[in-house]
């Protein structure tokens, strides 16, 4: 087993445990902390795949930005009653069956479809190539995505206004 394989299985196991913790814990704040750690571990997996810019972006946007906002929301909504509330609703049996079915399909594909045996390419800097792509060939999709974000921002402002426009 090489070092990369070891790190991959270590990070993967950690990610699974943390993700399970996010959905099972009754303490919302602890769940949010587990989620932020899981997102950080994901950045580690990105690094392993050679996406250094993507990993830094993941940490900057998700762990440093989005998770802080989620924690703000958790502070507003966490009440002692939540610790006694049921964690499942009436449809948990169909959901379980559906989930097991999807898992079975995935496992079947994993064992029957031949996987290409490829080793990881040596990690190379990606930010220069990404920058050229985003502001060159992919400039229009990039701008359209930012337009969607702008629309979301204006929408949040309209919903957040206390008086009518």
């Amino acid at each position, binding site marked *: 087993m090489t*070092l990369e394989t070891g790190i991959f299985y270590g990070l993967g196991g950690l990610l699974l445990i943390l993700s399970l913790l996010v959905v099972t814990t009754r*303490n919302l*704040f*602890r769940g949010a*902390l587990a989620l*932020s750690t899981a997102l*950080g571990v994901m950045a580690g997996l990105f690094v392993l795949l050679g996406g*250094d*810019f993507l990993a*830094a*972006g993941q*940490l*900057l946007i998700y*762990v*440093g*930005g989005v*998770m*802080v906002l989620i*924690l*703000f929301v958790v*502070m507003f909504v966490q009440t002692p009653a939540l610790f006694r509330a049921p964690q499942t609703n009436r449809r948990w049996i169909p959901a379980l069956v559906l989930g097991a079915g999807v898992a079975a399909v995935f496992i079947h594909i994993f064992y029957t479809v031949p996987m290409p045996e490829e080793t990881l390419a040596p990690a190379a*800097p*990606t*930010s*220069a190539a990404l920058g050229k792509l985003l502001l060159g060939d992919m400039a229009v999709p990039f701008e359209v995505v930012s337009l969607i974000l702008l629309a979301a921002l204006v929408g949040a402002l309209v919903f957040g206004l206390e008086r009518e426009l």
Partner: protein
Amino acid sequence: MAEVGIILRQGVDFARQWLVGMGATPFQALVASKVFETTVTISVILAIPLFLVYAERKISAFMQARLGPMHTGPWGLLQTPADTLKLFFKEDIVPQGADPLIHLMAVVLAAAPVFVCFAPVPFGRGFPLINLDTGILFVFAVSGISTLGILAAGWGSANKFSMLGGIRGAAQMVSYEIPRALSVVPVVLFYSSLNLQTIACAQMVRWHGWMPKWFIFYPGIGQIAFILFLIASVAETNRIPFDIPEAESELVSGYHTEYSGMKFAFFFLAEYVYVFLSSALAATLFLGGGDGAAFLPSWVWFTLKTGAVIFLFLWFRWTFPRLRVDRLMQFCWQFLLPLALVNIVLAAAWITWKTA
């Protein structure tokens, strides 16, 4: 004096070859040398707050025409080690009703990212631990994790003052992160690299053969970017005049009210190391890194420049009164952010004009 960075680099290379000669594979030797380098760096970083706390006490004292600590050791030199020793032996108190896990994790989340941030910082010739291509972005990304720690400290203390402090701290740090990152964009545009080592090396040339081509000397753009970065860094490190999250007169001590002993010490350690990190970044990005006259080695020049920026941090503390919480946000979103965007446009126009 010698170039410590290059000597260390040669020493590590020699040790690696010796390990390979002893029968280790090159890969094992590489891992061992990286572990060694990381340990040395973290040990040095842990010592920084000792000096900064002493400097802060003495400089504050001189600014107020006092003497500062004088009794423990010569000129009070041993005051900070004595305080550290005291903090080691203090009882660790977790408030009743607080979540003990979050109370502990807050310290870890606030203090641990500090040490990772130093990996790509070039302290001088031959120094950066990793020649990271995403350098400056990596530092901003990792230092952003500390915000979670401050928020968790506010929540995990089961105290209203701590909670208010934590929320204020998180809001302030998330907001000021934006002008801070945007103020660096002109630097990245000019040197077309995120790599801190590349940026520092690109400034080692001269204008007309004598004027150092540091980024701060670019007319207009350089000064605006530096001032924006400095203001946002002071706000990021929660120091006066931006110490709204701690604000002794309103919130007791903000998010670290309920912490004692070494947990409390770690919050302070993180704050002081962030001050050092911000100053080191300012020295690298705007003041030419290890560039300077040849009679001193590059790491001494780097330390001198970092020390000068740290002095600015201390100077601010005794010059400006604390901002009100709404004024703080207004200042960030209505003044710093537009100015940073205008500066980026100016820098882009300059580059287009130069290359056209």
